[in-house]
């Protein structure tokens, strides 16, 4: 877990993310270098409980079906109403090879939680993606009052 003291003491929220064993999303978050908490991978492990507003970053599962596109561990985390109240935006990983389903998990969460889909990236993201998200996240929290 990365905890950046500067980010914590400011009014900025944090990042909550899920990444499977392949670690693509984890790698993207590491490159961002922002305060972040990772959701447990194990389906039996208790999920996280957050205390501050956050942006959720998640991969998209499956090959185009809406059902199953959001990882179960993310659903479990969002099923907790307390966690759900604090989400402010979502960023989704995916692959354009999945056509319409590119970053589908992000669209589903955006709609269900009524928060904006902030960004989508492929695999672990390019340097451009990282720079854009870092800047975007910073400005996003500034605009939130």
């Amino acid at each position: 877990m990365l905890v950046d003291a500067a980010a914590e003491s400011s009014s900025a929220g944090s990042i909550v993310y899920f990444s499977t064993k392949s670690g693509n999303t984890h790698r993207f978050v590491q490159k961002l270098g922002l305060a972040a908490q990772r959701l447990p991978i194990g389906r039996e492990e208790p999920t996280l409980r957050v205390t501050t507003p956050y942006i959720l970053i998640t991969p998209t599962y499956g090959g185009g079906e809406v059902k199953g596109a959001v990882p179960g561990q993310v659903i479990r985390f969002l099923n907790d109403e307390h966690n759900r109240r604090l989400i402010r935006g979502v960023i989704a990983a995916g692959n354009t090879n999945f056509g319409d389903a590119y970053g589908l998990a992000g669209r589903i969460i955006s709609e269900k939680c009524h928060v904006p889909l902030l960004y989508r990236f492929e695999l672990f993201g390019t340097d451009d993606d990282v720079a854009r998200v870092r800047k975007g996240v910073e400005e996003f929290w500034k605009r939130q009052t």
Partner: protein
Amino acid sequence: MTTMQRLSRVNAINWNRLQDDKDLEVWNRLTSNFWLPEKVPLSNDIQSWNTLTQQEKQLTIRVFTGLTLLDTIQSSVGAPVLMEDARTPHEEAVYTNIAFMESVHARSYSSIFSTLCTTRDVDDAFRWSEENPTLQAKSELILERYRSDDPLMRKVASVFLESFLFYSGFYLPMYWSSHAKLTNTADLIRLIIRDEAVHGYYIGYKFQQALAEATPERQQEVKDYAYELLLELYDNEVRYTESLYDEVGLSEDVKKFLHYNANKALMNLGFEPLFPSSVTDVDPTIMAALSPSADENHDFFSGSGSSYVIGKAVATEDDDWSF
């Protein structure tokens, strides 16, 4: 290779005892993506096919013949060698699925041919494929690695085939689709494109796992070999692309598509992308043909920022959700 423990004996496979959850996750994904070419109404493209010039028809048949060769290699050589290197029985089973789907892909191109083309034109294209030096060169570059006794490089070659080499070919049906031509054929190709993404991801994942166990020196060596092979394949792809697409004036955009996908192939292996975004800016209409929602206005950070993007209504009835 001494660092790999291949499966030396066969035991009954127990899917309820997994060494690696990823095997089941990918198995489920692949089996739920299963399809056959009969599912796509290719004959609806006959009229559209007849609007193409003879030159465009020839290009299309050649491109699909080149793709057929890659799928044949992956089905009959690639997946079987990966099976030999499998670390878990479940990984082996995933490769049997991949091997079969590659046969379905190869079979699909022949379905397109029998629906749209004359036997003579198709025979000509197969003859062309056997004699075309750049097509033969790419096949040889991959087969050489498959024949070698280096399980890591076999996976590298396999990911490059899955995630990079197909794209000089996939470009064309996306191009036709963006011009409202051969749209059913494009639907079929999109099913193939979807499969290849899962194949490249999974083989790349298994590669990264095996690489993590190697010494730092060996890791560096494999990484160097991988970039070297990519560049060798890339140079050849550029020549292949020019030999096919120069006459229709599309080579430059196809090359951007190559850069974009080469980056993704490297990422599947866990390596940093090589091509800067200044040369990966594929024509947006091609990207839209690949992924209708890929354009930048679908998210908050890339758009003007004035539009507050909330996901469009998608029916999300997943049993797990409780709200």
